């Protein structure tokens, strides 16, 4: 069974590095309103979201988010404690067989409320990793070293990724506008501040629709011709950090060929290089025209935004085939690849 499903609308907040005093619900409500207005839909066949309790420091952070959705009468709804790209995957699966033709997907995060790199430590193996207090950036730096040594790439190559991403971000009204990489010293060597994602508060929403409904709601729907996600083992010592086998498999399953534009959920510069290699993206592919996570990282929405940004380039005719990638877990442990096309048979 296979139904044609497309991204028909995408809305995001203007992400901010500083807390603007808005609650998660207040961040979310305007974009839900906007996406309803844009599609003319008041109700959706299915709703799915992605968020993380630990960002808010309290359980059930997604519960109050329902207030923003207008869940009355009660809605068919689910939630993943993962980046909202996986919420989109769940919705896509549901659209394959459910008696529905639309789905609303959203994600939100306010990393400004805590210290993200320390919060992410709580995600690690509770026996061998978390007790060491090893933080997200330190682990990423381990992976960066492994990649640099294996590939022969240099720190300047990382800097080039940062420079290109920041330049692109400055053209994106929703991203943070960051200066060209300076001469800052290491954060955790070999990573420097510009190699690290620009954490931001923000939210994003996407509407998916099937077949004729998609054509009715959007002039040029971004058809999902393939979507797949794969995981690595968890401990950094039992996997090849210098490569992303899981991204490679996901790319193959999703049919990642002939890509013109790719939006990659790379939270560190070296991750983009690892992903390019795993996904077979050559120099002719435009990567992260939005500026990517290095220009705005509203955690838990960042992966979903990659899908939205890729779809946007199908919607406006800039590209006929685009790839979006999302990641979860330490050191690119989980990777999702979504291939979008202006043609519904790929």
């Amino acid at each position, binding site marked *: 069974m296979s139904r044609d499903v497309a991204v028909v609308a995408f809305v995001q907040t203007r992400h901010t590095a500083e807390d603007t005093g808005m609650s998660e619900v207040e961040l979310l409500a305007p974009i839900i309103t906007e996406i309803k207005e844009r599609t003319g839909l008041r109700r959706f066949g299915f709703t799915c979201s992605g968020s993380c309790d630990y960002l808010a420091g*309290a359980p059930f952070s997604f519960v109050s988010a329902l207030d923003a959705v207008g869940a009355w009468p009660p809605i068919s709804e689910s939630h993943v404690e993962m980046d909202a790209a996986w919420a989109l995957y769940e919705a896509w699966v549901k659209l394959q067989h459910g008696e529905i033709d639309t789905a609303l997907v959203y994600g939100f995060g306010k990393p400004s409320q805590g210290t993200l790199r320390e919060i992410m430590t709580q995600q690690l193996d509770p026996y061998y990793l978390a007790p060491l207090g090893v933080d997200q950036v330190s682990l990423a730096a381990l992976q960066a070293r492994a990649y640099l040594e294996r590939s022969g790439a240099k720190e300047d190559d990382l800097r080039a990724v940062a420079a290109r991403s920041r330049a692109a971000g400055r053209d994106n009204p929703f991203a943070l506008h960051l200066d060209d990489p300076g001469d800052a010293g290491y954060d955790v060597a070999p990573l420097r501040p510009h190699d690290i994602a620009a954490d931001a508060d923000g939210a994003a929403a996407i509407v998916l629709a099937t077949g004729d409904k998609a054509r009715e709601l959007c002039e040029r729907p971004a058809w999902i011709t393939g979507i797949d996600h794969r995981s690595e083992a968890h401990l950094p010592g039992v996997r090849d950090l210098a490569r992303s086998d899981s991204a490679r498999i996901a790319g193959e399953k999703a049919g990642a060929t002939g890509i013109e534009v790719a939006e990659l959920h790379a939270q560190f510069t070296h991750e983009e290089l690892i992903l390019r290699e795993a996904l077979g993206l050559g120099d002719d592919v435009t990567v992260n025209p939005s500026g990517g996570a290095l220009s705005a990282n509203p955690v838990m929405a960042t992966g979903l935004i990659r899908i939205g940004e890729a779809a946007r380039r199908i919607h406006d005719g800039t590209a006929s085939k685009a790839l979006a990638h999302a990641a979860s877990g330490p050191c690119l442990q989980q990777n999702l690849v979504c291939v979008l096309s202006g043609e519904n048979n790929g």
Partner: protein
Amino acid sequence: MGNPCAIIGVGQTAYKTKRLDVSMAGLVREAAQRALDDAGLTWNDIDAVVIGKAPDLFEGVMMPEAYLADALGARGKPMMRVHTAGSVGGSTANVAASLIQSGVHDRVLTVAWEKQSESNATWALTVNTPYSTSLVVGAGGYFAPHIRAYMRRSGAPDHIGTLVAVKDRENALKNPYAHLKIPGISREMVESTPMLWEPIRYLETCPSSDGACAMVLASEDAARKTPNRPAWVHGTSMRSEPIFFAGRDTVNPQGGMDAAADVYRQAGIADPRRELDVAETYVPFSWYEPMWLENLGFCGEGEGWKLTESGATALDGDIPWNASGGVLSSNPIGASGMIRFAEAALQVRGLAGEHQVEGARRALGHAYGGGAQFFAMWIVGSDKP
């Protein structure tokens, strides 16, 4: 509803206050291995893994699916993590079923778990932020006023909650996995226990358990090769509504009614009391049995307590509820919903053992969460729909 989806494997751990003999990975693997054994499969045969639990603060491992990926054989495979509060065990099963119904996969392992003993449920459920009040201590503190409202609205006599507390614990004595086993459980015993959150007595509440539950779901093709008889999904549904708004009926939430109507429609059921043979429902406080009897349409509004009092929901009644002993007897929170779904499947497979309801052919699995605002349900049958 898509492609047929079969339940070909069910695995449960024993539910206990503390499973000190296993790590988190050991706990989930124990249930998963049993589900694989039941299905006659190995780790290698599995296409994808769906994990459910809620919330992460219970064990203090954020997004634990990352750490558990290889423990569940998910290296190189898709793995998802569902979190819909207390209903999560049920929603997780529904998401796994969706992966089969959509034709995306042939064999999906789904696991839900909680190791409450690593932390403290009251703490994890009630983390006070600077902007929240400290007036709700644990789930009982939240649900007690709504139970009082039900009692007043329906005119139910005080002893109904006690009857359910006794019935479910009697059933638990027949379930090898159940946590609370209280031989000689009686009304006097329940009534002699203190009011924790009046009107809820100590023995009218669920225990705090460690445990995991797993299932292997399969496509029609994959189900043909399985050694034991499968159960078949006849319908799945989920509904959510906001927790506070003007006009919300907290006693008889619309979300529960809508989810029930949806799942009955898919399964072609007009009269659940007559057409279902057994129900495993999420009853963490004994009064929720009469409340959900009404919400799920097993009787009219205000009549639920009469059904309970008549003995209809007992193991030998005409519509047994929670033959396994239910949440009142075992409550590894994140898994509790999946246990309901799995027990429903065991009943229609005829594999429920001593608490088997004779000749059960169609069963309801039900879970709810949050402020009685998240609902997940499925109906399973012994025949392929």
